[in-house]
């Protein structure tokens, strides 16, 4: 069982010469070469809350273990954004079409990953959000 993630960054004109970076990672358990072997799969929710909603609940059993989170804002409108926070600390804003792929430490039960459709109004429509988690928690009933 293996999970790989590849990120490619490409621009023909952000610098004097074309820029192209490609990186592939095979996701492994913490400090080993063993593959991550658990996943919650790909999920989709429709967000209309301007206040934080828990997308992924932290579990302290995951502390010091490996976990990777993928989140994408599937809104077509590029002005609609999600504010992503961990333990109330803002990480950044995902505008329509943007995604993130980050490790997640789950240092304690406050380290939830939360999202808010900060500039949502009844006239903007819901913001579709897709996300996935790959992890190695010892308790299989986690992070759902």
């Amino acid at each position: 069982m293996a999970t790989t993630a590849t990120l490619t960054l490409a621009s023909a004109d952000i610098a004097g010469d074309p820029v192209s970076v490609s990186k592939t990672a095979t996701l492994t358990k913490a400090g080993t070469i063993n593959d991550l072997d658990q996943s919650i799969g790909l999920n989709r929710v429709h967000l209309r809350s301007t206040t934080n909603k828990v997308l992924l609940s932290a579990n302290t059993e995951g502390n010091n273990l490996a976990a990777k989170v993928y989140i994408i804002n599937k809104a077509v409108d590029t002005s609609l954004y999600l504010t992503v926070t961990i333990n109330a600390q803002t990480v950044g804003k995902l505008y329509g079409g943007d995604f993130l792929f980050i490790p997640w430490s789950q240092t304690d039960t406050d380290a939830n990953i939360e999202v808010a459709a900060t500039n949502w109004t009844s006239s903007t429509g819901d913001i579709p959000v897709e996300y996935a988690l790959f992890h190695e928690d010892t308790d299989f009933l986690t992070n759902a």
Partner: protein
Amino acid sequence: MAITNATIGISSNVTDSSLSVSNTTELNTAGTTTGVNTMTSVTKVLSSTDQVDLITTGSVSTTHAYVYINNPSTDETKYFIVTIGNAGAGSPTDTEEIGRLYAGDFMWMPWDVDDDICITPSTADDMTVEYMVFS
């Protein structure tokens, strides 16, 4: 206005039915269709387990940026703890741990440029970190 694309591909056979995800986004300034026009690309070698300010808010002049950080190590025991939060005067304090970048791992995320992004190497051996910021 530059055009910069970021593409993610995730492939997993952890589950019985394999998962495959692919998406491309154009990196734009906040809430617009105008492409980012500034890029920083840095490689550093760290030789201490002290937490360091890797990417400071003062290094970016916008309120929305994209950050790529890579741990190119091939030694699976070497990792970086990546944090974000209130980093003050070169002495990071009150930071929230995002996660750990193990050997070969990368991360990609938006950044609202409110707080510094800091890292802590797991060993005092020379550890290389690579990062890029688009804004």
